[in-house]
């Protein structure tokens, strides 16, 4: 019986299935952070039980950390308590923590892959919806709530119903200036913010296979923005080359053994999907969103649809039928688990080098991890940004969700490489336009929504 990539992994992780109910799914890796874990630890203590498999949990502090002066105590009291609570919980329950000050600290979905913790064939969960990122390695990875975080801490298992399966094939050559971020924004605009609810998505096709691991992570990251439980891509040589030699990658004979297993992870030729969608890569333009959910996106040369939700447009201060290109902006945020990896920073730096930001714009670049930050400094990217007038900050989730002090002021427009343009996401009444790092970079230089293809 031919199997999909998803089924090959799922079937190997089922402990048992309840009649008329969900399956008990075994979890290989559990990432935790300061915001969605404290109530789970508290729950365990209330039940009087220990963490079942602490060695399978990795913790970091990311959502709520400042991006300036991380060596100083966190000023905001509630944030400081939350980060401190994580430190105490990890000590008490013997959980490995890459917290503030640690050379591995960073956004949870950046550090897992860069440390080689994320590997093909795994089941991976985290109390964060963008856990779908790790699916780029051919893993079943998805976000969970805090009660589920507690379940995994207590038993290393979750009760899950098998989702429906969708395959999205992206075939052909991407145009100049079009990146992975544009592919996923295009897909979400095509099928809407709820178009994949109930599904787990496999991305396939030549345009996906030609992407780097960073690009694949960007795609899988935003699967949740069309409602999907997760997204995944079959591992290949690009995947194996990326993992090899990373701190937690298998070594020596262990590597060869793992590799043999990983090479079996693909959807069989006649495997059945509940839905398939075909996309022609050359149709994709650099994308930008104009509304208040990630499905409200158009090509950068397009017009805001006349059918767009008036409530959204009123919030955004935009007009139906108007061009989005040329819209003046106030802030640029380059960061988040979607686009804060070294490749993203390199791409931005390569365009920005020798240019200066527009006077009307403030630009924040927030690297995804300490390792990304260090690498950027090593390559001189920090100097390129400084000369352009960009602020290179310290790692964290930052203005993606405005939980720390990195908030976009009310009414201001921000071109953001993050994943959500919801009302108030980047701060009360902030207006977010989602785009790729390249489109963000050109906006930083011109001070408005611009078409990167006219500049490269």
């Amino acid at each position, binding site marked *: 019986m031919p199997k999909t990539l998803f089924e090959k992994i799922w079937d190997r992780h089922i402990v048992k299935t309840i009649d008329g109910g969900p399956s008990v799914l075994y979890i290989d890796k559990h990432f935790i952070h300061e915001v969605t874990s404290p109530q789970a630890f508290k729950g365990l203590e209330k039940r009087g039980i220990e963490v079942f498999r602490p060695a399978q949990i990795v913790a970091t502090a990311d959502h709520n950390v400042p991006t300036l002066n991380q060596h100083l105590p966190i000023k905001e009291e509630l944030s400081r308590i939350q980060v401190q609570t994580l430190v105490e919980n990890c000590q008490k329950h013997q959980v490995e923590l890459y917290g503030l000050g640690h050379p591995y600290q960073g956004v949870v979905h950046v550090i897992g892959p860069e440390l080689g913790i994320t590997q093909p064939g795994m089941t991976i969960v985290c109390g964060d919806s963008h856990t779908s990122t790790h699916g780029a390695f051919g893993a079943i990875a998805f976000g969970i709530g805090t009660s589920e975080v507690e379940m995994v801490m207590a038993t290393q298992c979750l009760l899950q119903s098998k989702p429906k399966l969708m395959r999205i094939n992206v075939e052909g050559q991407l145009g100049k200036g079009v990146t992975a971020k544009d592919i996923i924004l295009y897909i979400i605009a095509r099928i809407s913010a709820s178009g994949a609810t*109930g599904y787990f998505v496999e991305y396939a096709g030549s345009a996906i296979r030609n992407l780097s691991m960073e690009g694949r992570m960007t795609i899988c990251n935003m699967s949740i923005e069309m409602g999907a439980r997760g997204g995944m891509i079959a591992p290949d040589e690009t995947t194996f080359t990326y993992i090899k030699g990373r701190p937690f990658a298998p070594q020596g004979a262990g590597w060869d053994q793992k590799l043999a297993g990983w090479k079996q992870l693909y959807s069989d030729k006649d495997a059945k999907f509940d839905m398939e969608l075909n996309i022609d890569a050359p149709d994709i333009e650099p994308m930008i969103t104009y509304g208040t959910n990630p499905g409200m996106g158009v090509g950068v040369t397009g017009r805001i649809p006349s059918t767009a939700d008036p409530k959204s447009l009123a919030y955004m201060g935009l007009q139906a039928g108007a061009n989005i290109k040329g819209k003046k902006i106030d802030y640029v945020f380059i960061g988040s688990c979607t686009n804060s990896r070294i490749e993203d920073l390199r791409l931005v730096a390569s365009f920005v080098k020798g240019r200066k930001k527009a006077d009307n714009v403030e630009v924040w670049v927030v690297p995804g991890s300490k390792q990304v930050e260090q690498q950027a400094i090593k390559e001189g990217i920090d100097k390129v940004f400084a000369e352009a007038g960009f602020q290179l900050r310290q790692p964290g989730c930052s203005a993606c969700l405005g939980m720390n002090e990195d908030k976009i002021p009310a009414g201001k427009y921000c071109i953001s490489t993050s994943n959500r343009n919801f009302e108030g996401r980047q701060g009360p009444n902030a207006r977010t336009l989602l785009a790729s790092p390249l489109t963000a970079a050109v906006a930083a230089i011109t001070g408005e929504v611009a078409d990167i293809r006219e500049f490269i």
Partner: protein
Amino acid sequence: MSKAINKIASRAVPVHLENIDTDQIIPARFLKATTREGFGDNLFRDWRYNADGTPKKDFVLNDPTYSGKILVAGKNFGCGSSREHAAWAIKDAGFDVVVSSFFADIFKNNALNNFLLPVTVSEDFLQQLFTAIEKDPKTKLDVNLGDQTITANGHSETFEIDDYKKTCLLNGYDDIDFLLSIRGEIEIFEHQYAGI
């Protein structure tokens, strides 16, 4: 917080909007607590209150005409972030049921894990509910988990829920109790399991 639910008969509060994401239900800046309690005060914070903390008169939660234990909302409710705080906030504000024509997956699980019943109805039935409640805010809804029915003004619709979850909700069991009860089987699985 964990308590069994079966029959809920109540008036309802209509939030007549689609794609309500969890950032609207509870904005990130209110996620700094380390306990599960007290999130109800900030439910729909930025729709409900002005920046200075005064209530926005036109938002339904500030309209004394509407009350009850049932929240009725447009399709794709609870999309976005996995924050369980969204379910905690709704429950903490006194709701036991959310009715919509479509729920985001993670929110649905989070709701069930907090004995907040997500009831998925057809789009037609949902629109009938909005019309009925907005015409007469005293309209009573009857939600019966045992029978898997929701009724308003004599019109009923059945809703889906898996047998396992239904048993949990009717009896006040939670998933952790169940998983802990099979930890022996999990250990046997681990013993045989070599990963991929």
